[in-house]
């Protein structure tokens, strides 16, 4: 009538074992590394104003400026177009130096701000995206340039700059490359003040050489490179 495998203690034990295995599956899955993270660039973090060593390159944030509009550098094509009153431009001046081999900056550079991740633009002389060989960061030669973000001013919160550099010639392949995450160190009050006092126009210095001068197709190749 009641065979031993149906006995209550055995049933309970089986149920408990099943539960335990389910929990174990959950734990293992929670610790499984996502595919994207397995090959993601290796991040190194630091603060603004110091040289952040990202192993294959170093980066130093030299200044942050805010402006209603932007001009100069590779942003010349935006000049003349009406600036959007809902947004503010944040221009970060950085010095980047490749340490081992020729590199380019992977596009986009990103700004982490209060849980959101914004994409930014890179201006020459910093080489970015589909840069030709002439554009690359050569090992040991620091290059100073600007990256710019157009942001809704009220949602900027604890901003950190995230820059990835890749071996020159690898194009958009950022797998296992180096990444620097630089805390810009702007707290709430300072940010509000800086945004309120934003300049009319932030003038970005053009590159020392004129290879990415604002000729007619410059804006198209730079911005439209990802449109295929």
């Amino acid at each position: 009538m009641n065979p031993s495998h149906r006995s209550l203690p055995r049933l309970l034990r089986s149920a408990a074992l099943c539960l335990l295995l389910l929990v174990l599956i959950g734990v293992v899955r929670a610790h499984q590394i996502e595919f994207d993270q397995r090959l993601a660039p290796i991040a190194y973090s630091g603060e603004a104003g110091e040289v952040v060593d990202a192993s294959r390159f170093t980066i130093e944030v030299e200044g942050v400026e805010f402006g209603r509009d932007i001009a100069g550098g590779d942003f010349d094509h935006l000049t003349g177009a009406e600036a959007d009153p809902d947004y503010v431009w944040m221009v970060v001046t950085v010095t980047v130096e490749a340490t081992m081999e020729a590199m380019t900056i992977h596009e986009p550079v990103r700004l982490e701000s209060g849980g959101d991740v914004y994409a930014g633009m890179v201006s020459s002389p910093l080489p970015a995206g589909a840069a030709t060989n002439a554009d690359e960061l050569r090992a040991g030669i620091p290059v100073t340039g600007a990256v710019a973000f157009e942001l809704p001013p009220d949602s900027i919160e604890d901003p950190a700059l995230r820059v990835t550099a890749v071996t020159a010639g690898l194009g958009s392949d950022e797998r296992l490359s180096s990444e620097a995450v630089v805390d810009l160190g702007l707290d709430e009050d300072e940010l509000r003040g800086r945004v309120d006092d934003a300049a009319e126009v932030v003038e970005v210095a053009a590159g020392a050489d004129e290879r990415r001068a604002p000729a007619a197709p410059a804006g198209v190749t730079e911005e439209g490179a990802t449109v295929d």
Partner: protein
Amino acid sequence: MDTSGFYTRHVAHSAPDPTHPGARTDPGLSARFAALLVAFLLVAGLLSAVVWYYGGFASARDTEPKEPGTAVRNDLFTVTPTEAAVRTGDTESGGSRVVVHAKLTSHETEAEHARTFTNELMEAHLLPAGAEGESGIMEQVRDPGTAPISWVQPGLTETVLLVWDLPEGVSPEEVERVRLRVLDAKEGAGFVDESERWWNLNGKSVGAVDLPVEGE
């Protein structure tokens, strides 16, 4: 031994029921049952015919195209297209393009490729030519025709231009309407390419908006 109780309990159903004089004992269809059945079939058939007439049994189609200014939403964005135009004499490609003005809101917290929106999750059907716009890009209203938007920023809410090339062999005169079809969006890994991205798995649409084309 009194078996009468047993008998009445178990045979009562087949015994004639004196309280219903009309009930018959033969096992075939009673006239009453047949009448009820016919009436039921008539009513059911009529109802089915009405449902069928209004398309109730047709397989689910894409929702009917809506009026300009209707918001269409998938998991990645909400788009509200308001008007469409054909832009001719584009110096860059030489061809004509169809331009859709739309208010776009991104529900993502990370910047996303603009081409995910225009190339993968939206389709511009050109009517009555029966063709589809190609290589969609996104432009800023303040800056048309020069620098396309590469990235759609998190939480962006802005009016943008959605621009598609007319396919070869379709002249601007053949385009009287643009049907903007918004596809269902899912974020997930592919089977071969396991990286997470926004894409459309099944070609299903969450809505379409028909826009009359005006010259630009």
